[in-house]
C-alpha cells in the first residue's frame, strides 16, 4: 500500500504539460506539491463528477494528456463514465482511482463494497485497453513515465493508506493556489492556459 506522498511525488517528477484534475483527499496534498494553471481542484463542485469533467477536458484538448486523480467513493458514484470514456476514444485520458476504502473527508466512513470492489476489473470490463493496479510504491514509481506518455485511455488503480484530510474549502486560508479562488474564477484561469 502506498502513502499519499508515494502516490503524488512520481507524478510531480515526471509531469510536463499534462492537465491534472484532483478531487477529495488528494486535492490539498497535490496543491502542496504543484502550482500550475493546468491544475484543477474539483472542490466545492459536484460530488462524484470529477472523472467525467476531466474526460471533457481530454476530449477538448486531444493534444494534451489529462490525468484525473479520482477517489474510490467518487468513482462508485459515476461508474458509467468508465463506459463513456472508452466509447469516446479519448486516448489522452488517464483515470486514477485512489483507493483508501473510505470517505476520508467526512471521517472515514467505509465506502460500499470497501475491500471487495475490484476497480481495475471494472475498468477492464468497461473496455479500457490499458489497466494498471499498484499496491507497491517502487513498481508504481517505475511505471509512471509510461502511464503519462503511452496512449490510452488508461486506468490506474492505486491502493493507498488512509490519510487525515478534512473538508476542503475555496478560501484565502487554503495553502494551494488553485483553492484560493472561486470555481468560476479558477475555471477561467485554466481555460486561458489551455486555449492560449
Amino acid at each position, binding site marked *: 500500500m502506498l502513502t499519499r506522498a508515494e502516490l503524488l511525488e512520481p507524478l510531480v517528477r515526471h509531469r510536463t504539460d499534462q492537465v491534472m484534475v484532483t478531487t477529495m483527499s488528494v486535492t490539498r496534498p497535490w496543491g502542496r506539491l504543484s502550482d500550475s494553471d493546468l491544475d484543477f481542484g474539483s472542490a466545492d463542485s*459536484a460530488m462524484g463528477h470529477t472523472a467525467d*469533467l476531466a474526460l471533457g477536458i481530454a476530449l477538448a484538448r486531444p493534444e494534451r494528456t489529462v490525468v484525473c486523480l479520482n477517489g474510490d467513493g467518487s468513482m462508485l458514484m459515476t461508474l458509467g463514465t468508465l463506459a*463513456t470514456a472508452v466509447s469516446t476514444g479519448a486516448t489522452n485520458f488517464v483515470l486514477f482511482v485512489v483507493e483508501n476504502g473510505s470517505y476520508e473527508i467526512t471521517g472515514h466512513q467505509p465506502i460500499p463494497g470497501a475491500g471487495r470492489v475490484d476497480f481495475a476489473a471494472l475498468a477492464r470490463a468497461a473496455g479500457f485497453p490499458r489497466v494498471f493496479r499498484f499496491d507497491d510504491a517502487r513498481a508504481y514509481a517505475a511505471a509512471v513515465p509510461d502511464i503519462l506518455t503511452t496512449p490510452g485511455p488508461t486506468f490506474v488503480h492505486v491502493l493507498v493508506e488512509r490519510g487525515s484530510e478534512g473538508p476542503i474549502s475555496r478560501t484565502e486560508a487554503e495553502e494551494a493556489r488553485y483553492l484560493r479562488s472561486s470555481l468560476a474564477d479558477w475555471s477561467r484561469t485554466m481555460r486561458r492556459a489551455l486555449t492560449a
Partner: protein
Amino acid sequence: MTAPASSVLDAVVSTLADAGVTHVLGVPDNTSGLLFHALAAAARPRVIIVTREGEAFAMASGLWLGGAAPLVLIQNTGLLESGDALRGTAARMGVPLPIVVTGRGYPKMERHGIDRSTPRTRDLLVRADVDSVALLTEPTLDAWAVPWSMCRPGDDVCEAIRHAVSAAYEQERPVALVLTAPLA
C-alpha cells in the same frame, strides 16, 4: 444507422453548427432520438451519448474548460436527475451552456388545462392521467436559478435554439430551452 430525411432535423443540425456548438452531449428520448441520429451523420457538431444526464453536465463543463462550445440535449426526466451535476459544475463554474430539454408530458398537462399557476398538490402529482415530470420541469428550473424559455408546437425551433445559445454566452451561465415542439 442512417438518419431519416427531415428538413427540420437538417435545419436544427445546421443551426447548431452555425451557432458554433462543437459538441452535443446527452441521452436520447423519443423526441430527440432522430436528432441524435442526424447529428451522428453530420460532420459537426460531434455527438456524445452519455450513460446518465448528470454526466453530460460535468463533461460539458470540462469541454468548455478546454475551449470547446458544448450543448446538452436531454429529456426533462434527465434534467431532474442532473441537479447536483448542473449546480456543482456548469452553474458553479459559470459555464455558458445551452441546454435543450425535451418536454415529456406537456400534451397531457395542456389537455387537462394545467399550467404554471396550478398548485402542484399531492393529488395532482399522483394523478394517473397527468405526467408528473411536466408538472415539475419549470418549477425545478426556477428553483435551480436556470433561465429558461419554451418552444411550443408551431414555434420556430431553430430560432429558439439560436436564442438559447446566445443567452447562455451573454449571461455566462447554463440557459435552458424546454422543447415541446416536434423535431420531425
